[in-house]
């Protein structure tokens, strides 16, 4: 259908390509950008941890990130799949894992946690975006159960007070006793605990940043905090204590978990409603485990348990299309 009368401009012009619609995209948000956001938000708890734990933080951070990146690269090479550190997932996993470990974690435990996080938590499901469980929490749970000695309460405490908070027990292990730190210490982070969780204010600001950037869905932390505070209040009312709600919220890993661990988009539900249910579930489980289980803290288990339920939550929260469900076509 060529026509000789055409001016030569168009055919001799630029090389165009074909592609499906839509032809414009929101360039402000990419998965890499999301990962960067998470890292920026994690910077605050990291800095807080650096202030409290000093060099211990550095070793855990290097160990986790390094081991995670190397493992991911090796696994990708073994499967002959492209891999790039710039997708950020190995780094995010490594940082979250490091921030959830005790400062004294021996090198082999750190390494095993990172390797397990990447292999068992992510790569066997097909890599980024396909895992069911939060990789960092899988790694942590593995060493938690596997090396209780290196991960249990005594791993946090030392009698050698080079860093003064390290002589205290972690808040959740001394729940209800005299040793429980003041709220102010919990708020600013001047307490013992896993590296990243001590400072409530750092977790709050970092988390709010994520929510405002919409990298994290606000429904998840909202659900977690709501259900946790409701349960804590009920327990308060029955016990007569009054500040327990704040202690529950600021103590332990609840804030860190709610804002940084539970909000991992890969392992949380798709729809806003599902996300809120997911958050409620985590909050309730955390309180259940804190109050009743043999473990003083339950964020890790709660997240893993709810991760397992995500496919079912997704299934139960399929939104109805505007205008109602698709009618069954008669033939």
């Amino acid at each position: 259908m060529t026509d000789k009368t055409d001016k030569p401009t168009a055919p001799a012009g630029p090389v165009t390509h074909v592609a499906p619609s839509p032809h414009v995209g929101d360039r402000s948000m990419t998965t890499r950008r999301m990962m960067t956001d998470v890292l920026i938000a994690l910077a605050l708890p990291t800095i807080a941890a650096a202030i409290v734990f000093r060099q211990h933080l550095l070793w855990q951070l290097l160990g986790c990130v390094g081991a995670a990146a190397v493992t991911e690269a090796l696994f990708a090479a073994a499967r002959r799949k492209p891999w790039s550190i710039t997708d950020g997932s190995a780094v995010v996993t490594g940082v979250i894992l490091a921030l959830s470990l005790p400062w004294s974690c021996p090198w082999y435990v750190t390494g095993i946690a990172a390797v397990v996080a990447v292999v068992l938590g992510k790569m066997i499901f097909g890599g980024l975006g396909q895992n069911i469980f939060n990789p960092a929490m899988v790694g942590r749970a593995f060493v938690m159960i596997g090396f209780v000695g290196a991960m249990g309460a005594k791993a946090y405490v030392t009698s050698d007070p080079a860093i003064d908070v390290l002589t205290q027990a972690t808040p959740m292990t001394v729940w209800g006793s005299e040793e429980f730190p003041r709220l102010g210490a919990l708020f600013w982070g001047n307490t013992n605990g896993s590296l990243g969780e001590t400072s409530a204010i750092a977790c709050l600001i970092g988390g709010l940043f994520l929510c405002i950037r919409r990298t994290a869905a606000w429904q998840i932390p909202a659900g977690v905090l709501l259900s946790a505070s409701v349960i804590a209040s009920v327990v308060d009312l029955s016990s007569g204590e009054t500040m327990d709600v704040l202690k529950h919220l600021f103590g332990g890993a609840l804030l860190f978990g709610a804002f940084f661990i539970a909000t991992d988009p890969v392992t949380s539900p798709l729809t806003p409603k599902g996300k809120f249910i997911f958050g409620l579930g985590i909050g309730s489980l955390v309180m259940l485990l804190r109050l009743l289980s043999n473990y003083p803290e339950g964020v890790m288990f709660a997240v893993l348990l709810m991760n397992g339920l995500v496919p079912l939550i997704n299934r139960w929260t399929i939104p109805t299309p505007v205008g109602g469900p698709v009618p069954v076509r008669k033939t």
Partner: protein
Amino acid sequence: MELVSQLVLIAVSAAIINNFVLHYFVGICPFLGVSRRVDMAFGMGCAVTFVISVAALLSWLCTEYILRPGAPLTSWLTGNPEADLSILNYIVYIFVIASSVQLVEMYLRKFFPPLYKSFGVFLPLITTNCAILFACLEIMKHVSIGAGAGAWGGGGGEKWGLAAAMVLAIAGGVGFTIAIVIMAGIREDLDHCDVPKPLQGAGITLLVAGILALAFMGFSGVDSNLKKAISPQDPPAATATTPGDPTEGDPSP
């Protein structure tokens, strides 16, 4: 009240904390085989729960009246109050299970063909589902011998009545259903994931089960602490402590 709290504890323990599948490894075959689709898994869970209840009822009756040492029927027949037929335990249980499964299967095939069709080949598998025999054995342990027989303190040895046996069976079945439905949900999602080829199918299912078992370990102690919460005065505590006290446990996430 005592009975109610006992039943609650048995139920919570069997359904969640010491989940049949994830803690005792019973019922793994259907757990691997019938966990591809959520609806199918749920059906299987219901079938198991039903059969397990029937089997528990029958085996409790057999154990209580015939098999346990000093069972009334046996003693009366032999005139010996110590007569012990517990050697027949296993054979009787499996006999009961096999027949009742087969009966259910025939019944379903006749009267509910769609249900029968959707279970397909898995109904006969229930016969060989360890979960059911396991429930019977647990009941036997508590009925004929009594766990921790002869022990002092509140730590065990209570003989179970029919109610406890049934609660264990049903809760065990529910626990199985929970585990298999969660697994089916995950496996439906895994259909769209790029799982390494050697791990596809059973491999990844086992690994996911491993992670789930890890997660379920978080519940350890909920039963005994719940017991303390329900009846706080019961055993004298070695120290005045609250549940979340210093422990080998995990102080954070």
